[in-house]
Every structure is written in structure tokens, then in C-alpha cells.
């Protein structure tokens, strides 16, 4: 037994040696690179553990999580974020109970009204204005609301673009092309600065919702193109087959086209939602105190001036964590859909 493991280790090391030091120059190169990498790692760890002053993160954790949400109501956004986490875990580990699995989609969709209820309050909870929303809560709210709104809009736009009616087809392609030709920051500026000017006095749309609408309008154009890719990869013969089975137009779209197109477009849609999550940080320069905005406000506190690196490293970690969770979830979903496509 030990012999085998020792010889396998020797083989392993020989492999490394062969790969890294086939001749003198390569050996030299390997050593230098190894030295540089270990130096960088060492310095980074030394900074992370000894030099960095993590008090700026530690004493502001509630701010990063909830912004200036009143502190005696912190449990509300906390419940929402925890419920999102729980549903993610349930989705990942695939529950055995069938009823739960069946209702998972409904659970995901219902997190948004739940979140809005918990944040806005009313019906028994103290109402809280959206100006108190902030931090990770606001970032997640922007992402979930915008993606939930833009998916149906994107599907409709993709279908319209495939439509045989020239007016509808032209209009939706113009919309998609225009939206894709405008940078996101311009759309967001439009939403934050110009919409209030166009509205008559007295009518006011909340700035959080203005941001959500701007993101929705922008992302739906991209989603439409992703879904169009999915639609186009479905063979025409399937539509003919569905026709001959006597399905009407809507049934074909609902039962044949959309499910398959969504499955094909899933990796691209994941990309969009992760991109959307990261793009919400643009709102920091437009005056919303979401995750990045809170970080910038905290850096102006005289107590924490100059601790840029700590704050930005921490923010990078949080963004990485959430994006990774999203990516893992999407990969899991993809796997489940390809294993048993008939289930869908």
C-alpha cells in the first residue's frame, strides 16, 4: 500500500519536474516565477492579517448590509436576505420532497413581493421610505427587481422581433438596436436626471424605481437578443409538427418555443444577471447609497479617512461572494435541465 502511494507521489513529482524544469532556462524561469508568486502571496497575507485595519468594516457592518435603514427595523431586510439564502441552498441541494421542488419557482418569484413588503412596510409594519434603503439590501433589490421585470419584457421583445407583422417587427428591432447602442450610464443618467424634468409638477417617481426601470429597459434589449438566439436554434420542423398536432399560435409559443429557447439561452441569461448585479454599482455615482455608495460615504467619515484599500477589498469580496452564489445556482439549474430535458 505505502509503496504504491510513495511511487505515485514520485511519479507526480517527476511530472512536475518534467513540466517545470525541462532545461536550465525553464528551471530558472520556474524558480523566478515561484519566488514572485510566493512574495506576492506573502505580502498580501501579511497585509490582510497584520497591516489592514478591519475596524472600518467591522464597526460598519450594519451600514454595509442595510444602509441607513432604522436600526430597530434591521430584522426586516435581514429576514429577506436570509430567506433568499435559504431558498438558494434548497435549490442547490435539491430537496427530496416533491411538493417543495414543484413550488421552488413560485418561491423564487414570491421573494420579490416579500422583499418589497418588508422594506416598504405598511400592513402592520412601520412604513419606511425608500431613501433609507441602502447597502447590500438595495443592491440585491435593484438586481432582483430589474431582472424579474426585464425577463418577460425581453421575451416579448424577442417574439416581436420574430413576428411576421412588419410594424411590430420593425418597432422591436429599432428598440433593441437603439438600447444596445446607448451606454448603460447614459440610460441611468436619463432615468435619474431627465425623467423628473419631464414629469409634471407633483408627480414623482421614486429614485429607486427610476433606477429599476432604467436597468429594466436596458437589460431587456440584451435579454431579447439572447432569447432570439435560442428561438432561432429551434428547428422550423418543430413548429410544423406543433401545427399539425392542432396547437394554436399561443400554445406553440408557450409549450414549444419558450421552454426550449430559455434553456438554450440560460448561460447567456446568467451572464446578464451577474452583469446586472455588478452594474448596479454604477448607481453609486448617481446618488443611491447601494453597496459601493455606502462604502464611499463611510470613507468620508473622519474616523475612517484613508482606509480605501480595506473598504474596497471588502467590497470586492462581497461582490465576488454574491456573484459566485449566482453562478453556482445557474450552473446547477443548467445541469438539472440538461439531465432531464423531458421534465421541463
Amino acid at each position: 500500500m505505502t509503496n504504491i502511494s510513495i511511487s505515485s507521489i514520485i511519479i507526480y513529482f517527476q511530472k512536475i519536474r518534467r513540466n517545470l524544469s525541462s532545461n536550465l532556462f525553464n528551471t530558472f524561469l520556474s524558480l523566478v516565477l515561484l519566488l514572485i508568486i510566493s512574495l506576492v502571496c506573502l505580502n498580501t497575507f501579511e497585509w490582510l492579517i497584520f497591516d489592514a485595519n478591519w475596524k472600518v468594516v467591522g464597526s460598519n457592518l450594519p451600514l454595509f448590509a442595510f444602509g441607513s435603514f432604522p436600526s430597530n427595523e434591521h430584522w426586516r431586510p435581514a429576514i429577506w436576505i436570509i430567506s433568499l439564502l435559504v431558498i438558494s441552498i434548497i435549490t442547490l441541494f435539491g430537496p427530496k420532497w416533491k411538493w417543495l421542488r414543484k413550488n421552488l419557482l413560485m418561491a423564487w418569484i414570491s421573494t420579490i413581493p416579500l422583499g418589497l413588503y418588508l422594506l416598504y412596510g405598511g400592513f402592520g409594519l412601520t412604513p419606511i421610505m425608500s431613501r433609507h434603503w441602502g447597502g447590500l439590501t438595495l443592491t440585491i433589490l435593484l438586481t432582483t427587481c430589474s431582472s424579474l421585470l426585464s425577463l418577460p419584457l425581453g421575451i416579448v421583445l424577442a417574439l416581436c422581433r420574430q413576428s411576421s407583422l412588419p410594424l411590430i417587427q420593425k418597432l422591436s428591432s429599432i428598440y433593441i438596436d437603439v438600447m444596445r447602442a446607448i451606454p448603460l450610464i447614459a440610460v441611468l443618467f436619463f432615468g435619474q436626471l431627465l425623467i423628473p424634468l419631464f414629469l409634471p409638477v407633483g408627480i414623482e417617481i421614486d429614485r429607486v424605481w427610476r433606477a429599476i426601470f432604467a436597468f429594466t429597459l436596458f437589460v431587456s434589449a440584451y435579454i431579447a437578443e439572447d432569447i432570439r438566439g435560442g428561438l432561432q436554434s429551434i428547428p422550423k420542423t418543430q413548429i410544423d409538427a406543433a401545427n399539425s398536432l392542432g396547437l394554436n399560435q399561443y400554445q406553440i409559443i408557450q409549450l414549444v418555443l419558450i421552454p426550449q429557447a430559455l434553456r438554450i439561452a440560460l448561460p447567456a441569461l446568467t451572464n446578464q444577471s451577474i452583469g446586472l448585479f455588478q452594474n448596479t454599482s454604477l448607481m453609486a455615482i448617481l446618488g443611491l447609497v447601494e453597496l459601493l455608495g455606502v462604502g464611499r460615504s463611510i470613507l468620508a467619515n473622519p474616523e475612517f479617512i484613508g482606509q480605501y484599500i480595506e473598504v474596497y477589498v471588502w467590497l470586492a469580496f462581497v461582490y465576488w461572494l454574491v456573484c459566485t452564489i449566482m453562478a453556482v445556482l445557474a450552473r446547477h439549474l443548467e445541469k438539472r435541465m440538461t439531465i432531464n430535458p423531458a421534465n421541463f
Partner: protein
Amino acid sequence: MAKISSSDLKIMRRLVSGIVGMTILLTGCASPSQENSSRLDLIKKRNELICGVSGKIPGFSFLESDGSYQGLDIDICKAFAAAIIGDSTKVQYRPLTAAERFTAIKTGDIDLLSRNTTFTLSRDSLGGNGLTFGPVVFHDGQGLMVKKDSGINSLEELANKSICVGSGTTTEQNINDAFESASLPYTPIKYQDLNQVVAGYLQGRCSAMTSDRSQLAAARSGFKNRKDHIILKDVLSKEPLAPASDGQDQKLGDAMRWVVFALISAEEQGITKSNIDKKVQLANRNPQLKPLRRFLGIDGGLGEKLGLSNDFVVKVIKTTGNYGEIYNRHLGQESEVPIPRGLNELYNKGGVHISPPFN
């Protein structure tokens, strides 16, 4: 203060102000007729003041760990709320970027702007941004910071030295003008934004760095050994920072103006948060102290003329203290962002703050 925002914002602001200008032109004809009632009444009815702030400037407005806003700009908002509503907690702070601050006033998104805004002609005039400015609450200006052990004490001693500066800003222009008019040679070392300027200065790439004095002080309070750096006395530009409101609304503008003057006047008369009650008693007992009685609202009915309560000065001083107290709390020597008062002293102590009489 233009230089507060990063340089990319500047470009966007230019772009946006173009678009905004066009939009105002387009909507100009359709804009609803000015209502007769002032926003002052609206604020009272709403029982809440909406104050536009930055939220990202050390010493002026920033987020405290408990989620509340603090700073000099914030205290000005509190003073307004105390004067108009009678309760300094009834303020809604709206963090605004430099780009959206004027639109926010024009659209009625906010009542007052207390966000490090430089008072200029084009912002004040009807043909420009159409705002009206209150009295200056902080005289900022471009300054220079050097290391103490360099022995440099004035602009002249910086001849032939290198200076770290943010590129493409008015800061760069001002330092150039200053050295050119003194016909001194120098080497500018340009960086994209203030953080890089600070980093370059700390790494010793230049003998001095330049920015607004408030920013220099803020940057310095983040240094490990802040005592080793000094801000030179030379001031290269004028950046008078003042609160602002909609220029169409004279009633609100007047109230704003006199609340700030009340803060300054209280300092002139030595009325502070701690002795205000005694001063009120004193004024009540002595009918011959006419100016004090008028100031504190016992005689004269001055507050009513502004649409405020007569004792608005008492309410304001009770919540924030006088101007000097506000300054010392956030920018004084004991604070975390110490800035020498300089121009911000009272007129009789070498500064420029002066209040017209409360008559």
C-alpha cells in the same frame, strides 16, 4: 466645490448639463405656472425638510457608523429645520452627486441644497442655473500642503520644485496661473484623481500637493503622522461654499439667508448653545436691550416677516449653536479634520463673516 467629485464625473456633468439645458428649453413653454404659495409653506405642511447633501465629504457631510449623517453641511440643514419646523430631527437628507444637484432643486426633489456648492454668477443668475444662494458658510480655496521638515513656508520657496496636482481640473489651471504670475518655474506632476495625488505626494514624488484646503485637511487627517504636514497660508483661488434654493422662491430664499445670518450674528454677540436660555431671560427682564430683544424675537416680529416664528433664532441656536460652535465641532483644531479658520473667522477677528443687522 467642483473638485470634490472625481474627474470622470466632471465629464459626465458637462454632458448632462448639455442635455439638461436642452430639455429645459424644450419643456420651457409647457412648464406649469409658478404657484403662488412658497415652498416654505409646503415644508411646514409636510412637517419635513428635504435637504440635498453630498454625504461623501469629510467634515462637511458623511455617514456615521450608526447610519446618521454628520458634518457642517448637515448642521446647516438642521438649523433650517429648527427655524422652519421647530424640530431639527425633521430633515430628510438626500445624497446627491455634483451632476444632479441643480436638477434636484429645479424639479422640486429637494427644498434646499447644502452640498459644498461654490457660489458663482452663472449658478445664481436667472439666465444660468436660476438658483438663489444663501450667505457663504465656508470660504474654501485652493491651497498647498508640504512636509514640515522640508522647511518650505510659502509659494515662493516652491520655485523649481515639483507639485502633485489632479489633471484637467481648475486646480491645475489655478496653480499654473499662480506660478506664472509670480514668474516662478515649477514642475507639475499630474494625476487622474485626488487619491492618486495623495499617494504620489506621500511616496515623495513631489515636494507639495495642491487641492482645495478642505480636501487637503481631510486627506491629511488620514495620514499616519498628520502632524508632519502643514498647509501653507497661500490661497490660490476663491471657493465660497453656500447653501442654495430655487431662485423663483423669494420667501424660502430669504428665510434661508437669515437663518445663516442668525448663526453668524449669534457668534458676533457671543450667544451660544449653552447661554441662550440666560440671554433670553436677560432680554425678557431688560426692555432697554432693544437689539437683543429684536434678535431673540421678543420685540419687532422679525421672524414673521420671513414667514418663520418670531423666536426662530432661539430655536436654531438651541439645536446647533452659533456658527463658531458648528465650525469647531466639525473643522476646529480638536476635530478630526482640522482646518484653520482663516477667512472663516468673524470680520472683527480677521475673517470675512459678517451679519447685516437684525432690524
